[in-house]
């Protein structure tokens, strides 16, 4: 993982951008949908995370002509996608270990 801690909101933002570019409000809604309304981002939290992701070059702005500021879209970079895959692998491993441990405890 490269110099950025992947908190749950950050992970959800990255997942939101994994399939296609989205603008800020679409990310907010998608994060809420993905987490069954458990994670509801404020605009402050969203743009704080987007700023960090831009700085780390995990995401980039989609350059479009005549796009109003509110419809500015973001997409994953190759680095962001690689780190997202690493995080997903880490979570898979954690889930596997947790499943084994819980099953062992129940036996």
């Amino acid at each position: 993982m490269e110099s950025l801690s992947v908190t749950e909101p950050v992970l959800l933002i990255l997942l939101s951008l994994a399939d296609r570019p989205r603008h800020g409000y679409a990310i907010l809604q998608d994060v809420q949908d993905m987490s069954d309304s458990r994670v509801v981002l404020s605009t402050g939290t969203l743009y704080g995370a987007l700023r960090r992701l831009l700085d780390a070059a995990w995401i980039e702005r989609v350059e479009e002509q005549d796009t109003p500021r509110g419809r500015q879209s973001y997409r994953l970079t190759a680095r962001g996608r690689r780190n997202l895959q690493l995080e997903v692998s880490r979570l898979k491993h954690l889930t596997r270990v947790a499943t084994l441990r819980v099953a062992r405890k129940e036996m």
Partner: protein
Amino acid sequence: MFTVYRFLLYLYPPAYRSEFGEEMLAVFRAAQTEAWKNDTLVRSRFCAREIKGLVVGALSEHVRTIAGYDRTPVFFSRRIAMRSEFRFPKVTVTLMTIILAGVVLAIEKATAIQASVPDSYQHVGPIQPAHFTFLPTMLVIMGGACLAGTIGWAILFALHRSGLHRLAEFDPASHQGSGGRTHA
């Protein structure tokens, strides 16, 4: 609310505001339109969440600007908690009410006991009213904290870990052009 939001954006550093301010306003307006279709409770939660997000976000940005790197305070980190936001447990209100009632009852009981015991009762003696000790206690705590801070800083200074030595050796000419943000 929109005016309040616009005003609160001034908490952010100017560079951040010029880069994201307009975009944040547009997204906030869209989110507010959606939230305003619901009842008062949802609206209130929305407002509280947005204000908290702005204040915490602005604080983080200022810390980053001052320190030169991301240093999100530990208590804002969700790495361990994996929770989207702090949720105030509803049962806490009930517990606090019970505790308050207990304190009030204890005060009433103590007053009754004080009134029932004669001043000349030899086993107890006169019960004096409690003196107000909050201010002296706070002064002692603050004095202790200042002393501990001074000692800590002195130790760091003695170990060359306070940053002052590095600051004295800092040569601005050799660091020109090494900073700057990465824009993708």
